C-alpha cells in the first residue's frame, strides 16, 4: 500500500491511539494503554519511513495531494486538507516521528508510577497527531491547525499535574503567551491572503518567487516585510524567542518526557520550521530577515546568560533550549536555512537526550530537581551519566559530535552575512562559550563533587531499560547525527545541504570563493572549539571540585532572577490588563450592559405577559371565540380577492 499516496494514515494513527486511550484507557491496565500508545506512534513512524522511502524512490519529486476541501468560499478562498512531502518535510517528519517514538518508549518507563497514565499518553498521541499535521500541511491554515493543536497539547501536558497550582499557572501562561504570537501569525496569514489571494504554499511561494514581486530593499517596510514580521511574531511565540520566551522555562512544570518531546525536540522548533518553510517570502524581505537574525542572536545570548546561574536542572536545559532556538533563528535570519534546519535536527537529538537524561537523574533522585542538592552521581548511574555527557559534548560543540557541525555551520553563515555579520558572529560565539559553561556546570554539579543529599533518604538507582535504551539510541544519534553535513574542508560532502538544496537553493556559501571559504571555515571552527574549551575550563575551575551555593549578589542576582522580565511583564502588561478587565469589562460592560440587557428583556417579558395573560381566561368558551376570530381573519385574508367585489356590491348575489 503506497503510504505516500495516502499520507493521512501517518497522522491518523496517533489520533486513533489518542482517542482510544482517552475514551477507554481509564478502565484499562497500564500495559494495554502502553501498547496502544506505542503501537500507534510506532506504526506511524514506520509509515513515515515507508513514505520517505517512496519519496526517495520517486526521485524526490515534491509530492502534494488534496484530500478534501475544508473551507471553500465561492471561488476566492479554497482551503483543503492538503498534505505535502518534500525534503524539508522529510527531515521534520523523521525527527518528529522518530524522536517522538523514542520519547514515548521512555515515557512508559518514566510515567509508570504516575496517576493519569492513560491521560498522559492520550495527550501525547494527540500532540503527535497535531505535530504531524503541522509538518505535513500544504497550506498555512492547515499548518495553523497543527500549530494551535500542539499549543493545546502543550497546555494540557504542562498542566498535567493540574492539582499543583504552579503547574496549572504555567500551562495558562504558556497558552496566553502563545495567543499573542498566534495573533500575529493570523494577521500575517490574512495579509498573505490579501496579497496573494491564496494560502497554499505552492501558490504563495510561486507568486512570491515571481520576478515581478519587488525585492524590498533593506529598511523598506513593504507588504512582504510586514507579513514576514507578523509570521515571525507567531514564531517567537511558539519558539520562545524574545520577547515571548517567558513561557518556556515555566513549562518545565510538565513531566520530563513532555519537556523533552514538546519543549525541546519538536513543538518549539515549529517556528523555525515555519520560517524555513516560507523562506522564499523572507528572502524577499531582508529587513524581516535581519530582524529575525537579531532577535535570534539576542535570544541565544540572553537565554545563555540566564542559564549560567540557574540551579534547577530542567530550568538550565530550558534556557539552553531557548538559546539554541535562538541559534536556529539566527541561522534563518542570515539566510542559512539549511544550517538552521540541520541544527534543528541535531538539537532535537541531543536536547531530547539531555532532557531525558535529566529526567533519568530526577527519577534517580526521587523527584529532586535542584542541582545543589545532587552531586557525585556519576558512579551511581553510569548509563545516564554517559548519555548526559554525550549530550553535553554534542551541545557544546566538540567534534565529532553533532552539535559541532550544526553550530559551526550557523556561525559560519552568520560570519558571512551582511550587514553586521561579524557582530552577530561575535555574540553567537559568546553564547557558545556560555553554553559550554553552563552545560559543564550542570555536569559537575550533578555528577561530580561531594554528595549534597542524604543517602538514607534518597535511594539513588539506575532507571529501567525502557528509559535507558532510548537514551543510548539518542546518544548514538547525537554522535553520528552531524556526519551528514561534514564541512567542506573536512573533505566530506555536505549531504544535508545537498539534500535540502532543491528547497533552499544551492549551498549558502556566499561571497568568498571556495578556497578562502575553506580557510575561513577551518579557522572559525577552530575558534568555536576553543570557545567550548574555554567554557569547559571555567566551569571546571569554578565547580570542578565541588562548590557551595553562595548568596547571589549584583549581576548574579539579576541573572538568577532572569532580568526580572516576568516582573516587568507583570507590572507593564498583566497588571493594567487585570485592572481594565476588572473595573471596565467586568463591572461596567458585563454587569452593566450585558446583564442589564438580559434582565431587562426578562422584566419586559414579564410585564408584557402580565397584561397578555388576561386573555388566557381559562374559559373554554372564550377560547372558542378566539378560535372563531382567528378563523375569520385567516378566511378574510385568503378570500379577500374573492370577497372585495362582494362587499363593494359589484356582484349582486351569486344565485342564478
Amino acid at each position: 500500500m503506497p503510504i505516500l499516496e495516502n499520507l493521512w494514515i501517518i497522522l491518523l494513527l496517533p489520533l486513533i491511539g489518542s482517542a482510544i486511550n482517552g475514551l477507554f484507557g481509564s478502565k484499562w491496565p497500564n500495559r494495554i494503554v502502553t501498547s496502544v500508545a506505542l503501537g500507534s506512534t510506532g506504526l506511524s513512524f514506520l509509515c513515515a519511513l515507508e513514505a520517505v522511502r517512496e519519496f526517495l524512490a520517486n526521485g524526490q519529486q515534491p509530492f502534494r495531494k488534496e484530500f478534501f476541501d475544508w473551507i471553500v468560499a465561492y471561488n476566492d478562498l479554497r482551503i483543503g486538507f492538503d498534505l505535502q512531502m518534500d525534503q524539508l518535510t522529510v527531515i521534520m517528519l523523521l525527527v518528529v516521528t522518530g524522536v517522538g517514538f523514542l520519547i514515548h518508549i521512555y515515557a512508559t518507563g518514566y510515567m509508570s508510577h504516575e496517576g493519569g497514565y492513560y491521560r498522559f499518553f492520550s495527550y501525547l498521541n494527540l500532540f503527535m497527531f497535531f505535530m504531524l499535521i503541522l509538518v505535513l500541511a500544504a497550506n498555512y491554515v492547515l499548518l495553523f491547525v497543527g500549530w494551535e493543536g500542539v499549543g493545546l497539547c502543550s497546555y494540557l501536558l504542562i498542566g498535567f499535574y493540574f492539582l499543583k497550582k504552579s503547574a496549572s499557572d504555567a500551562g495558562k501562561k504558556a497558552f496566553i503567551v502563545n495567543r499573542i504570537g498566534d495573533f500575529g501569525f493570523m494577521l500575517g496569514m490574512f495579509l498573505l491572503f490579501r496579497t496573494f489571494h491564496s494560502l497554499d504554499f505552492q501558490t504563495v511561494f510561486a507568486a512570491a518567487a515571481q520576478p515581478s514581486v519587488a525585492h524590498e530593499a533593506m529598511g523598506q517596510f513593504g507588504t512582504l516585510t510586514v507579513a514576514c514580521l507578523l509570521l515571525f511574531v507567531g514564531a517567537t511565540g511558539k519558539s520562545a524567542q524574545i520577547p515571548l520566551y517567558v513561557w518556556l522555562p515555566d513549562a518545565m512544570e510538565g513531566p520530563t518526557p513532555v519537556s523533552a518531546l514538546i519543549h525541546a525536540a519538536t513543538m518549539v522548533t515549529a517556528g523555525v520550521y515555519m520560517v524555513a518553510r516560507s523562506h522564499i517570502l523572507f528572502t524577499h524581505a531582508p529587513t524581516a530577515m535581519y530582524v529575525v537574525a537579531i532577535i535570534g542572536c539576542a535570544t541565544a545570548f540572553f537565554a545563555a546568560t540566564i542559564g549560567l546561574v540557574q540551579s534547577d536542572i530542567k530550568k538550565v536545559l530550558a534556557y539552553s533550549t531557548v538559546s539554541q532556538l535562538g541559534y536556529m533563528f539566527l541561522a534563518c535570519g542570515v539566510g542559512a536555512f539549511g544550517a538552521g534546519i540541520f541544527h534543528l535536527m541535531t538539537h532535537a537529538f541531543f536536547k531530547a537526550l539531555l532532557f531525558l537524561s535529566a529526567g533519568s537523574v530526577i527519577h534517580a533522585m526521587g523527584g529532586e530537581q535542584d542541582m545543589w542538592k545532587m552531586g557525585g552521581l556519576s558512579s551511581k548511574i553510569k548509563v545516564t551519566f554517559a548519555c548526559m555527557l554525550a549530550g553535553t559534548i554534542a551541545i557544546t560543540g566538540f567534534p565529532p559530535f553533532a552539535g559541532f557541525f550544526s553550530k559551526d555551520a550557523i556561525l559560519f553563515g552568520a560570519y558571512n552575512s551582511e550587514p553586521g555579520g561579524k557582530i552577530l558572529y561575535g555574540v553567537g560565539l559568546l553564547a557558545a562559550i556560555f553554553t559550554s559553561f553552563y552545560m559543564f556546570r550542570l555536569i559537575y554539579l550533578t555528577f561530580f563533587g561531594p554528595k549534597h543529599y542524604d543517602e538514607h533518604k534518597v535511594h539513588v538507582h539506575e532507571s529501567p531499560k525502557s528509559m535507558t535504551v532510548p537514551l543510548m539510541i539518542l546518544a548514538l544519534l547525537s554522535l553520528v547525527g552531524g556526519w551528514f553535513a561534514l564541512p567542506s574542508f573536512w573533505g566530506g560532502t555536505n549531504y544535508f545541504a545537498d539534500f535540502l538544496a532543491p528547497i533552499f537553493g544551492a549551498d549558502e556559501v556566499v561571497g568568498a570563493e571556495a578556497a578562502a571559504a575553506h580557510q575561513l571555515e577551518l579557522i572559525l571552527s577552530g575558534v568555536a572549539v576553543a570557545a567550548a574549551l574555554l567554557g569547559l575550563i571555567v566551569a571546571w575551575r569554578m565547580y570542578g571540585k565541588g562548590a557551595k551555593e553562595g548568596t547571589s549578589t549584583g549581576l548574579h542576582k539579576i541573572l538568577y532572577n532572569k532580568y526580572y522580565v516576568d516582573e516587568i511583564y507583570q507590572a507593564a502588561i498583566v497588571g493594567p490588563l487585570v485592572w481594565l478587565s476588572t473595573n471596565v469589562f467586568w463591572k461596567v460592560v458585563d454587569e452593566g450592559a450585558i446583564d442589564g440587557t438580559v434582565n431587562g428583556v426578562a422584566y419586559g417579558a414579564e410585564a408584557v405577559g402580565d397584561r397578555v395573560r388576561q386573555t388566557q381566561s381559562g374559559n373554554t368558551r372564550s377560547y372558542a371565540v378566539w378560535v372563531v376570530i382567528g378563523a375569520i381573519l385567516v378566511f378574510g385574508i385568503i378570500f379577500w380577492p374573492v370577497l372585495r367585489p362582494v362587499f363593494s356590491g359589484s356582484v349582486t348575489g351569486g344565485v342564478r
Partner: protein
Amino acid sequence: MVPTTYYIVLSAILFGLGIVAFVFKRNIITLFMAIELMLNAVNLAFVAFSRALGKPNGEVFVLFVIVVAAAEAAVGLGIIILTARNRRSLNVERANLLKL
C-alpha cells in the same frame, strides 16, 4: 334540478350554526356534537362540489372525514369520561383548574 349554490349556502348556514353551538353550549359533549355538525356541513359542501364538477374525489374526502370524525369521537369521548370522573361536571366553564 337543484343549483349547487343552494347546497353550499345550506352548508354555510349549518357551519355557522355549528359555530354558534360551539360558542354557546357549555356541556362538553355538546361541544363535540357542534364540531361534528361543522364537519357534516363541510361534508355537504364536498359532496355538492364533487357532484357538480363530476369528480368523485370529493366524496372520497367525505369518507375520510367521516373516519377521522369517528376516531376523534372515540378518543374525545374517552377523555370526556375521564374528565367527568375527575371533575364531577361536564360544564366546560367549570373545568378551570389551570385558571389563576
